[in-house]
């Protein structure tokens, strides 16, 4: 069971801030494919991965990163702090 979190327009598009996901996905990309196949709102949010960033257990990662042992995955647009 992985906690999946969404921020900013990803959260708005999917319509929820977080959810528990039962998955056997090996990498972030595999998880994205599973989520995108669920419903149109997920497919819309994940349509362009170049517009998204991902963090694994609160550290930035890339879409090919393995999910072994990961408890928290977050998807969000490029950050705009400062």
């Amino acid at each position, binding site marked *: 069971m992985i906690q999946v979190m969404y921020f900013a327009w990803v959260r708005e598009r999917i319509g929820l801030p977080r959810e528990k996901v039962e998955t056997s996905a090996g990498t972030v990309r595999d998880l994205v494919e599973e989520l995108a196949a669920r419903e149109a709102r997920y497919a819309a949010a994940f349509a362009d991965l170049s517009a998204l960033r991902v963090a694994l257990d609160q550290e930035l990662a890339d879409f090919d990163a393995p999910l072994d042992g990961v408890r928290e995955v*977050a998807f*969000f647009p490029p950050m*705009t*702090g400062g």
Partner: protein
Amino acid sequence: MTVRVQEETFDIGAEAGAFAVRAGGQAGAVVTFTGVVRDRPGGGLREMVIEHYPGMTERALSSIEAEAVSRWALTDSLIIHRFGPLAPGDQIMMVATAAPHRADAFAAAEYLMDYLKSRAPFWKKEIAADGAEWVAARDEDEAALHRW
């Protein structure tokens, strides 16, 4: 070294003053920078809402700060970043650096700013009379990281 992520506002003068006092006699230079919510050129911005990722935000800011401390001879540093709804003119964030010499204090402050713009999990949404939109990350901000 201090990182604060908070919804409430802060007093720029009081923060800068306390930081300078804390820096003490070892610091010959104290640099502070404050980021402010900018209205649109013709006005009309009602609110800027800042969303963040509690937990990761503090970790990212602490790691950016630790990197600055390892690169420059800092005696102290401070990052304050707000979240929640802000109005034009409100301060969003502040960094302060203290070092024996000003070159280190200035460079470290710029480094902190560059990194927290693109590597700390904050997202800005502008609410105006004609609608709301998420502020897009700028290529220049990403490019600015390459100079370090």
